[in-house]
């Protein structure tokens, strides 16, 4: 076994008392340091049970579970859980404790000094994008669902555990918030490089979040354990195929992020410029419109010739509103935005909302054909290399 392995399950089973059939039967799986492994499957398939055995919220009835080389059944359950972050739906915050108390619970149990806990709480609130001064003393019910979820993540990160377990963490939020939380969490993970086991029943979420995805069947039997690319390109059997659902080709757009495709460029102009300057600029290039930006290069509106009136001093408030996407959003998000916006292109912005580039339908088509080409190449490679078990092939991503 290499150092690279963080969690390993060896023939793990769980049979509940009074039940003949095991809830989890003979699951074996290795999870590498720094990857997000998503357990996905229909409800009642035992994915949550499997996850909870890792921090022994549920005691396994057979097999071995190693976390960082240590057999978890040999450790004290409570001590073990303090070293593993745990996030549940809606954050699982204690309603009678302030945000700061909630986040500080684990450090306090670990015996940290009060000053250190306070510092850590503020640091974590910053990390998850909540202003400490404003949110530290709030009660959970004074937060929106998305904010509660962020605090839940902050609480799990409090003692900087190397491993995190997340049980449908974004399940109870509306689609828009979920999308944002997912993007934020991926950004966080790039920095933190935790080893994460993530349970969900939403296959699209699995594709978006997972470094590798384990599709589970009855009794947590692993039907396929692979990268999202491989899963979409080559489902191991019919059940997996059904679970992936229709539109696998479209779902592949979830695999590429906008920052990995070549963006186009727009003609930028400050809002304080005059309409004549716009006309001059449009004459000198083949664009139909210029993109107005504010002092921080944040995109504002598309301004074309038709939007310019004779009595305007500057470009404030005229033109069509822009549709923006984060550079970390997927091509799927971009396509979606494009179809709903009225100008057929989206403006890509960085974390601070500054202009990065423009993506239009041609950019997307180019990216899609590249992906198709790459998949074809890879399939050829896999079949030549190991005709036996393509389903178990382990390959890094990104």
């Amino acid at each position: 076994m290499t150092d690279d392995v963080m969690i390993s399950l060896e023939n793990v089973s769980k049979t509940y008392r009074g039940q003949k059939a095991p809830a989890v039967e003979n699951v074996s799986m290795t999870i590498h340091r720094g990857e997000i492994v998503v357990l996905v499957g229909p409800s009642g398939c035992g994915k949550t049970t499997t996850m909870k055995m890792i921090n022994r919220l549920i005691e396994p009835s057979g097999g071995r579970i190693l976390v960082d080389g240590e057999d978890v059944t040999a450790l004290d359950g409570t001590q073990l859980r303090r070293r593993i972050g745990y996030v549940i739906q809606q954050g699982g915050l204690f309603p009678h404790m302030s945000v700061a108390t909630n986040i500080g619970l684990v450090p306090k149990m670990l015996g940290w000094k009060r000053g250190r806990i306070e510092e850590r709480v503020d640091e974590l609130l910053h990390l998850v994008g909540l202003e400490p001064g404003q949110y530290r003393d709030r009660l959970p019910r004074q937060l929106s669902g998305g904010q509660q979820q962020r605090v839940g993540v902050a609480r799990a990160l409090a003692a900087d555990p190397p491993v995190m377990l997340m049980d449908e963490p974004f399940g109870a939020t509306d689609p828009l918030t979920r999308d944002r939380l997912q993007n934020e969490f991926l950004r966080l993970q790039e920095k933190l490089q935790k080893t994460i086991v993530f349970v969900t029943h939403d296959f699209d979420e699995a594709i978006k979040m997972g470094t590798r995805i384990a599709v589970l069947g009855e009794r947590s039997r692993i039907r396929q354990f692979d990268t999202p690319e491989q899963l979409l390109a080559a489902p191991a059997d019919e059940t997996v195929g059904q679970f992936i659902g229709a539109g696998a080709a479209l779902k592949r757009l979830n695999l590429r992020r906008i920052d990995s495709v070549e963006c186009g460029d727009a003609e930028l102009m400050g809002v304080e410029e005059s309409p004549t300057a716009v006309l001059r600029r449009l004459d000198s290039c083949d664009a139909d419109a210029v993109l107005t930006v504010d002092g921080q290069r944040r995109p504002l509106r598309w301004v074309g010739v038709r939007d310019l009136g004779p009595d305007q001093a500057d470009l404030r408030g005229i033109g069509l509103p822009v549709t923006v996407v984060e550079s970390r959003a997927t091509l799927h998000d971009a396509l979606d935005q494009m179809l709903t916006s009225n100008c057929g292109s989206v403006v890509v912005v960085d974390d601070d909302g500054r202009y990065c580039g423009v993506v239009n339908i041609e950019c997307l088509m180019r990216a899609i054909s590249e992906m198709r080409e790459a998949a074809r190449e890879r399939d050829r490679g896999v079949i030549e290399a190991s005709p036996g078990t393509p389903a178990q092939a382990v390959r890094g991503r990104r």
Partner: protein
Amino acid sequence: MSAGTVAGGPASIAAPPRRRGRGLLRRHSAMPVVLAAALLGTYLWVRSSPLDDIERRSLNADTLLRLLGRHLELTAVTAVVVVVLAVGAGILLTRPALRWLAPAATSLANIGQATPAIGLLVLLSIWLGIGFTTAVIGLIAYAVLPVLQNTIVGINQVDRSLVQAGKGIGMTPLAVLVRVELPLAVPVILAGIRTALVLAVGVATLAAFIDVGGLGELIVTGIKLQRTSVLVTGAVLTAALALVLDWLGGVVSDLLQPRGLD
């Protein structure tokens, strides 16, 4: 059954302390006024009617204070023992290892409450003899159910996912109980204690039948010797005491209402 009902209006939690205080005043100011009026009315009525020897022997400050003191003593001892016993037992009966015992325990407590109080006291005094201890034991048997039941219900109604979350982040079972389950069960448990207090004040009047004293003595005297003024004074004082304790219970449970719940 009072189990599961949270007495007292919703406290405004987000509000700063001063507004919370004003809310308390608004919600709880009616009862003292009504009680004061009733007591004053009774006093003026007794004062204005001519009293004979028997009445004068009962209706003087010394006797009334002694009887009231005795009544409070009975109620207080009962309340302390009941809270310790029933809350303790309720906590034990919600632990995973003992949860299966809970139905049996509540039906046992039910028997205590279903038995007619006077019969229970008489039976106990045949067995244990007449005296303060016997009266307290009878009262305890009578008052234990609401506290026990509300403790069990109060703890069980705490969102299971919060208990799981507590365990999941590495709290010990004791920490989960003390920091999560009990604080969130406080309103329901307090409602049970309030009910038990009111019951105990009422039933404690029966202690007079086994010669333990208390405000019941006035009622018994009033009935036996057909002195309406004595009977009414005893009844009014008992009712007032019960209502005062209930009112205090309401104030306390508003003050102890965990923040963040409504």
